[in-house]
């Protein structure tokens, strides 16, 4: 009981501290420049996603490092069509990622189904996940992905996406 209270109090204090401007700014700066996307190719847009981290476009310049495990990452790129089977997996991935986390839907399919909009086997990412940025195109150019990263960074640094809840 007492311990629980202490825990709560500590959390409260930490929350107060965190939401103070300099610390919050530092935190948001850190997160914005350390976006690690999950290695989760849902569909053919993955080809362009791969090209975006490749030498010509080199998304790593933004601190964007495609990483191995989902437990260490904080961005989920939905790379194109989400079939029903993959939708389940996407939900698992999203929920198992640690907070704070962001979702970007990539490609026409990732937004509204694109050319497959009337297929019987797809779901729209925005129906199952809280998507914050959409990148149109089929497939979007790697520049689009870079633009999405910039947009995400901007949003994070504005404090729109990372909320300290307790």
């Amino acid at each position, binding site marked *: 009981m007492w311990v629980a209270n202490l825990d709560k109090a500590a959390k409260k204090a930490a929350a107060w501290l965190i939401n103070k401007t300099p610390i919050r700014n530092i935190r948001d700066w850190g997160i914005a420049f350390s976006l690690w996307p999950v290695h989760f190719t849902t569909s053919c847009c993955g080809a362009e996603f791969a090209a975006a981290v490749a030498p010509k476009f080199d998304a790593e310049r933004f601190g964007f490092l495609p990483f191995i495990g989902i437990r260490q990452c904080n961005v989920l790129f939905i790379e194109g069509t989400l*079939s029903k089977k993959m939708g389940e997996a996407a939900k698992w991935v999203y929920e198992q990622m640690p907070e704070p986390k962001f979702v970007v839907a990539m490609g026409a399919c990732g937004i509204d189904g694109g050319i497959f909009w009337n297929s019987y086997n797809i779901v729209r990412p925005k129906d199952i996940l809280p998507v914050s940025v959409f990148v149109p195109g089929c497939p979007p150019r790697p520049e689009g992905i870079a633009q999405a990263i910039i947009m995400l960074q901007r949003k994070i640094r504005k404090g729109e996406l990372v909320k300290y809840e307790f």
Partner: protein
Amino acid sequence: MNFEELKSRIEEGLRELSAEISGKEPNVININVSRDKIVEVAKKLKALGFDHVKAVTAIDYPNERFEVVYIASSYSNLDLAFFLINLRTDLPYNDPTTPSLIEVWPSAFYQEHEEHDLMGIVFEGHPRMGERLLLPESYEGLPPLRKEFKIKTEGINA
């Protein structure tokens, strides 16, 4: 080997199996058989050098019949590789079962499975009948490639 030659050779090989053979220039040979003869025909064809299946197509003619087409060709004999053998069989609409040819042509394994999954044809002797291949395991309802399975369409007007 030219087209006519091959056709006559196949005709010769399949004589007692009552298969209808027709050709379409330059390289497609259609062989229609009933489903109880299909395994033997396939074996004969394999003996003739057609060692693999490139595609298995199932076609749905609603309330009439299903047609299963095996497109076979050869890798080991490059003379034959130019030709595509369409081994066709018709199945009654209410009983779409046919013997599986994976014993003869293992290359048909996933193709048959897919046709089972999406078209609802049952290939007897295939070890994975009843399992899903492409559709999610929880999928229920009509096999989606059937003509009765309708998908949404939108007109050109919004």
